[in-house]
């Protein structure tokens, strides 16, 4: 244990170290990226260095974690939950960078800046996981979002990419405005932007019940709901994920979601606490609506990227169930879930990348017909991802324990979320409808005559697929280490919430 005093610059630097490594790495990389003219080799070298920056970030996170750094209630949090979510984000960035190398080469996307943008987006995300102050949080959101808006439209020749980018930008800017307005109102009501101070102020009914606070919290929640793609604020998601280049759709679906959820959990547990009945109710309905909408709409999708984006909405719903529990156990469940979700979703996008042989980026499910007969490895990997997303034991590996963890957190909360748990289970059955549809198409449909087999996946993509499958299956057999880390980190980071005074009147 080593407490840091954040008012001393040197110690503040230590607290920020992983973020600084990634951010500084990103800046230097930008210089290197524009140093040379655009070429395939240059783009590749930038990608490799970007991955190196991510690895350095991972090392910095592990170093900080290992030293057991802590800090008081300053502007940034220094705790294990931040490190865990940072690691998930860096993992997502690594996977994205790895699959984007071949993809960009195939799509003739040569601008090396996009690898830089991934790193910069990542530093924004890491800022978001660290934020214990609404201003830092907003900075993180903006740094992350602006980088990702550009990434969505990085393919200038694609009109769908441009549409995706513009849509994302307009709606994202809109949601940032909500967020900012919410922050302003919360500041007005409590006189602070620090989460812990807000939390203390919330304990007086005069503050927590004041209209200004309520409107502020509502706007804050709307902002978050946009970022995590919770229904009914999810409309942008399918278009954006579908139009953006596949690796960056994966980044948006995983890392962006991880960062937003990490921030949301912190706001929930440190600022709002269990003090606000209405906040809880709003989360409850968000979770229920997101699960139902995401999974129901995914069924009719025949475009794999769209299907995956609706599936990511559904998973946001499952994650919101754990947020609704408002316990440290819920936070642990979220950390664990995000690991499984990132591995499976980015793995699935890696398969999409491997499948997409330079066409216009539309990934119709028919292209997967009979994939098993021509590329058995790819088909089996995709089946594992689908079953992991479905939450199936053993074959779906870690996905099952992730879902189990969320279920357990929901039922173990001081106000058990039994109804949400039932909705979760039933929507999971619904989700089997589309996850299994893809499996069925790959394994049980014959390969149509004349449909050329996809080109063999190349080195890095293959590595991403193999590693993620192995990790998913290994943690599916023996999840103990991951459970331990999730449990300890959440318990060490958040004080256990006080029991809710009126537990009975929670669920509608």
């Amino acid at each position, binding site marked *: 244990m080593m407490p840091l005093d954040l008012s001393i610059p040197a110690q503040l630097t230590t607290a920020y170290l992983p973020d600084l490594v990634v951010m500084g790495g990103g800046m230097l990389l930008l210089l290197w990226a524009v140093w040379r003219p655009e070429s395939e080799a240059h783009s590749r070298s930038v990608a490799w260095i970007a991955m190196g920056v991510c690895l350095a970030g991972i090392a910095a996170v592990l170093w900080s974690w290992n030293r057991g750094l802590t800090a008081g209630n300053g502007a940034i949090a220094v705790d294990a939950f931040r490190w865990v979510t940072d690691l998930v984000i860096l993992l997502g960035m690594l996977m994205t960078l790895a699959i984007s190398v071949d993809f960009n080469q195939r799509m003739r996307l040569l601008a090396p800046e996009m690898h830089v943008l991934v790193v910069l987006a990542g530093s924004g995300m890491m800022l978001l996981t660290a934020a214990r102050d609404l201003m830092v949080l907003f900075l993180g959101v903006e740094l992350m979002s602006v980088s990702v808006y550009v990434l969505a439209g990085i393919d200038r020749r694609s009109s769908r990419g441009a549409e995706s980018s513009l849509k994302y930008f307009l709606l994202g800017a809109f949601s940032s405005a909500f967020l900012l307005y919410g922050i302003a109102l919360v500041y007005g009501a409590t006189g602070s932007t620090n989460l812990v101070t807000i939390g203390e102020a919330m304990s007086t009914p005069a503050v927590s019940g004041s209209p200004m606070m309520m409107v502020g919290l509502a706007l804050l929640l709307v902002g978050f709901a946009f970022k995590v793609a919770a229904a009914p604020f999810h409309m942008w998601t399918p278009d954006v994920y579908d139009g953006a280049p596949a690796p960056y759709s994966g980044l948006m679906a995983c890392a962006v979601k991880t960062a937003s959820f990490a921030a949301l959990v912190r706001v929930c547990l440190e600022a709002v606490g269990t003090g606000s009945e209405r906040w809880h109710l709003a989360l409850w309905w968000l979770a229920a609506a997101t699960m139902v909408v995401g999974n129901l709409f995914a069924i009719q999708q025949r475009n794999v990227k769209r299907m995956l984006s609706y599936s990511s909405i559904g998973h946001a719903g499952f994650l919101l169930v754990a947020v609704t529990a408002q316990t440290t156990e819920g936070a642990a469940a979220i950390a664990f879930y995000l690991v499984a979700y990132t591995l499976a979703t980015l793995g699935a996008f890696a398969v999409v990348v491997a499948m997409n042989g330079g066409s216009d980026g539309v990934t119709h499910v028919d292209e997967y017909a009979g994939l098993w007969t021509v590329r058995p490895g790819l088909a089996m990997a995709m089946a594992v991802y689908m079953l992991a997303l479905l939450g199936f034991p053993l074959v779906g590996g870690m996905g099952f324990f992730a879902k189990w963890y969320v279920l357990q957190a929901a*039922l173990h909360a001081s106000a058990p979320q039994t109804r949400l748990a039932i909705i979760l289970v039933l929507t999971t059955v619904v989700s089997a409808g589309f996850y*299994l549809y893809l499996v069925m198409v790959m394994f049980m449909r014959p390969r149509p005559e004349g449909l050329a087999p996809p080109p063999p996946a190349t080195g890095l993509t293959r590595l991403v697929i193999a590693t993620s499958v192995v990790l998913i299956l290994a943690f599916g057999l023996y999840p103990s280490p991951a459970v331990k880390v999730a449990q300890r980190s959440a318990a060490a980071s958040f004080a256990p919430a006080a029991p809710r005074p009126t537990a009975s009147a929670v669920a509608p």
Partner: protein
Amino acid sequence: MPGFLASIHYGTWVLPALLAIPLAGAALIRLAGRSPLPGQELRAAAWREVRVLAFATFAAEAVVALGLWWFVDPARAGYVARLDLPWIQDWGARFTIGVDGISAVMILLTCLLMPLAVAASWQVVTTKIRSYYSLLLILTSGVIGVFVSLDLLLFYVFWELMLIPMYFIIGIWGGTERLRASLRYFLVTMIGSLLMLVAIVVCWQASGGATFGLEALTRTLSLDLTYQRWLFAAFFLAFAIKSAVFPFHTWLPDAQHEAPTTTAVALSVKVGAYGIVRFAVPLFPAAALDDGIRAIVIGLAVVGIVYGALVALVQPDFKKLVSYSSISHVGFIVLGVFALTATSVQGAVLVMVNTGITSAAMMCILGMLHERRKTGMIANFGGIARVVPMLSAMLALVAMSGIALPGTNGFVGEFLVLAGAFAGFPVASILAATGVVLGAVYALWAIQRVIFNPLDNPENRRMKDLNRRELAVLSAFAVAILWIGIWPSPMLDRLGGPSRRFVMQVEQGARAAATLEAATP
């Protein structure tokens, strides 16, 4: 024999071996056969190698399992051959496995049926043959896992593990309607099992988040009746769906009809019924003995018996007829378990075994008929007794066992169920007995249309009778049918002890819950 088993420390390794042998076989099969270029089908010459390897694995499994017959002492209470390893410490989930008389018999049934099923449909599968046998072996591991798990989370993992190979086998190697049948099978089963998962979480939390152990939970779980009812309902739903209890049976005829013979055989092992006996009733004894729930469940059982028989009567397709007849038999199992006398429970477990044997034998014979004539419609046959006398004789024998003719295995089980249930539930027993009569009607009528009647379809004249392989398989089934029918006492001895203990345990649990209810106003 027990001395020999002790000398080789049978108890310490048998269960892990039973779980591992199929997986090892599946891995070996991946390596077998001349490896063709990637993406290419295995050459026909290599098929034999794969089949032999698969059969050898199943046979090894059967030989290892055979020891359980002598190893499990019917007089001793509790589970033997236990193995208890830590798994997920933070949640208290453990890798706990063990067997008692009931699970030993079910394991034995599975391990003996699978090699027979593989032998019976030796040449049916010709595409992707390595994947087919690998999946079949993984499926067997899953089924064995369900029978040995004594930890709820572990049980759930194995329970769901069964689903995947089954789904792929039906979907890839099934009949013309295979896609619909496999998806339906998957979704319907999944609804049940996920609700059971929620119930498992609740049980675990009632234990203070400390354990998933079946024995510990049975001993210590004290929930009030309302809670117990809901949890019982969730467990029962999962098991009722899996064992096709009326009205949750609709997936079975489709799945069994589309599935290749081996998998249709695997589907006739009633894992769901086993789950009711092992988990649903002992964990929630007060709910299981609750008058309302008992009335509903026994009502479903009786309706299922009669309904299954009536629907079987009008099936034009022989395989579907067999499926509906097994739905009817499952009614007897449920009736026997919930009548909750030592005799009826013993009978119910025996019916589980018998349905397995009879329905599996039927599926094998129908598979053979299908190989010869590429059809399963009853109307396409007629008078084949003159063309294929051996096959017809076997068909007739298996049908007799299905209608519970004295001297066959079917009789003993159903008789015990009815005898045990009559005292407590006379009306239900009488109605169930009419199911036996209806059973005779549909089975005999089907037999008459298939093997007797005039031989008016010229295609039937060219059918070949059983070859040696098929004869050997069906003789094994015939021996089992007659052995349990004529000399059932070794079997009954093994089931008697566990059944009595089961009844005692449930009644005790219910009393404990009643006192708890009385103590808390």
